[in-house]
């Protein structure tokens, strides 16, 4: 059975078809949610939310794009909105903690490559980071990214280029690693 038939059966209320559609896409949705959030609990939450919304809105899916493109549009919206909320909450916590710890000093250990890479990617602007993770890490095409984020393909390419440039600068200390 092809995907169009599967979607038609889901629309008709076939719960087995719902599960089959979920099974066909859940791994990629979860991978993207995890790459963007870096947290298993949040990734599960976002994956569930994306599928709940997709099933609820399936009547509005007209088949003009691939189902996976439509589903990943929902996924990126759910993940980015969810992360903004969590970030705001954590920022409030951090601001209060900082205010309470005025005068205290911290020593940070010299980070290794993995930590530096994580920090560099985390500090990218949201758009650059999302495009970098979707394209270079998860293998989405610029067309898929453009559709998911609601931007032009050229914008996606430009953001990827800027993301790489920022990462190149941030990781300049490790130059020998890739030349070798």
């Amino acid at each position: 059975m092809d995907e169009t038939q599967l979607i038609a059966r889901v629309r008709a209320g076939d719960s087995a078809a719902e599960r089959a559609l979920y099974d066909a896409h859940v791994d990629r949705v979860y991978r993207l949610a995890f790459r963007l959030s870096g947290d298993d609990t949040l990734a599960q939450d976002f994956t569930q939310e994306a599928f709940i919304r997709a099933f609820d809105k399936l009547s509005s899916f007209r088949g003009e794009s691939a189902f996976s493109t439509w589903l990943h549009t929902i996924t990126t919206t759910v993940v980015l909105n969810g992360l903004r909320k969590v970030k705001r909450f954590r920022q409030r916590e951090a601001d209060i903690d900082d205010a309470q710890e005025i005068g205290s000093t911290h020593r940070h250990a010299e980070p290794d490559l993995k930590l530096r890479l994580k920090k560099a990617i985390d500090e990218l602007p949201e758009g650059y980071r999302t495009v970098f993770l979707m394209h270079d890490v998860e293998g989405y095409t610029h067309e898929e990214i453009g559709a998911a984020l609601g931007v032009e393909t050229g914008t996606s390419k430009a953001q990827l280029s800027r993301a790489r440039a920022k990462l190149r600068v941030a990781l300049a200390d490790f130059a020998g690693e890739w030349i070798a």
Partner: protein
Amino acid sequence: MMDQHEDPQFDQWLKDVARTTYHAPRTPPRDEMWKRIEAARRHKQVVVIRPWLRWALAAAAVLVLGIGIGRVSVVKEQHIAKAPAQAVQDTIDALANQAYQIAATQYLSRTETFLTAFRADANRSANTARLARQARDLLSTTQLMLDSPAAKDPRLRSLLEDLELVLMQISLLNPLEDGRDRDLITQGMNQSNVLPKLRSAIPAGPVPVRTEGAL
């Protein structure tokens, strides 16, 4: 043509390192997530605030004002009619119901943000005392909501009761506890599917409606 600043060797190295070290995904728990999706979908939307509803609310407010002015005029003329008075009462009731729905949506949104962050931070050294205080604030609102007309809806009532229990547990967290209590609360949240139910109760409306007053 390659940009003069591009470095294919670096790009390839970066891809390889990022794929293997940056947020490398685990195997997703398909069945567990599916069970939660099914449970949340059974627990359909509770409160529906659509953009048109806000316009309807504004229109109703104008209507009340108009009727009120008309009524004052009539009083002055000592010709009070029963029908307009009933219309005013009906409109006021309708407005009150809408107000409760808006309050419910904002409260649910705040609670969802709080519980999402609580669960995500369950293993972190977040300030337990502050979490407990925030939970107490939300708990007070939960109890007010349970006593309000919004809780007449059995699904919303059931959700509010679940939230009351979770928030009560968080509000009682001991600042000196070693994390086991948090784990138990998180396990309870997972078992009762409280977050998926909560999310399905929040309408996918515009951001100002959904997150106004959010944490």
